[in-house]
């Protein structure tokens, strides 16, 4: 090839992959905290939408609402409800951790704070689950 004709090829641009938010590959403790916070946040938003839908049965009178509740009594939904409680508790406690960190409190101990959040969430969920089942 004639050197004058040579053109430097364009570099390949990076692609934005949303899966990266949730990829478990090689994460530090803070990375896991972020993954879980984001995941539970999205789950809660989806639940809120579903919740609003189920509550619409309230507007259709006691019988319709009771029928909807009976449908939700199935063990699968109860299990999902426990998972929901776990999501709420983790998201809430880690939210507090994130707020502390933004005030530059405990940033050096963010990993320890994550484990505190994690263990507290697990224990509270366990207590809630025992009550609910």
């Amino acid at each position: 090839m004639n050197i004058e004709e040579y053109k430097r090829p364009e570099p390949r641009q990076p692609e934005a992959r949303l899966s990266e938010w949730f990829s478990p590959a090689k994460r530090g403790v803070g990375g896991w905290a972020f993954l879980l916070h984001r995941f539970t946040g999205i789950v809660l938003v989806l639940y809120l939408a579903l919740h609003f839908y189920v509550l619409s049965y309230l507007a259709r009178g006691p019988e319709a609402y009771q029928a909807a509740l009976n449908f939700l009594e199935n063990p699968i939904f109860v299990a999902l409800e426990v998972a929901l409680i776990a999501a709420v508790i983790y998201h809430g406690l880690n939210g507090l951790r994130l707020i502390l960190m933004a005030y530059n409190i405990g940033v050096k101990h963010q990993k320890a704070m994550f484990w505190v959040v994690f263990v507290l969430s697990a224990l509270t969920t366990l207590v809630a689950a025992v009550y609910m089942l």
Partner: protein
Amino acid sequence: MAEVTFKIYRYKPGAIDPPRYDTFRVDVEAHETVLDILERLRLDDPTLTYRHSCHHGSCGTCGMVVNGKEVLACVTRVLELGTDTVVVEPLHHFPLVSDLVVDMTPFFEKYEPVGMPYIRESEYIPEGQPSEEVGTYVRFESCLECGLCLSACPVVGTDPEYLGPAALAAAARVVQEPRGQDVASVFQMVDTEQGCWRCHAAMECSEVCPNDVDPGGMIMFLRRELLTGKAHSGGKR
């Protein structure tokens, strides 16, 4: 000495496209680094490309992803990785020029406008009294401009507008030690949706930073300054 399998990411626009992994079996000595091995392999295959300069972890050009983690290849001993197979890939989130070579332009586009002076007062040797001509001891700023933090950050990966950990850490350094720079305008630059408020404290940046800049911690420092009103002179309310 041990035999190690190297799986190296290969890509050249128009030539090796789609990308592939080339596999090499290599005898590795205890002292040898990932960069040493790449240089040996290049003797047999001159088309293998990578960036490097200083060979001692101070120029920041040899950043790459080894076994999924961002490292400086020149100070990463192969046998200390402890795996029989070592996977070598280019940094994430940068335009890819060839094999392990990325285009650092997006890094400097965000980093340079902050205007951090490179020389800082040294906090070391507190007992040593510098002579009068010297005044104070100085040293270079810690950031090597290696881009490892940008490669590790999950937000940089999806939001090209985000200022990113290195630039924000540089901004925090200016706030801590202005050295004649305009702190107010730096606060204005980082107090934005795409500045220090885009971060979600995943701390992956601090996890990989080879020189303890702790960009994640620096971002939290900036937030505290902005939240507690210490940045009145510059930060927008």
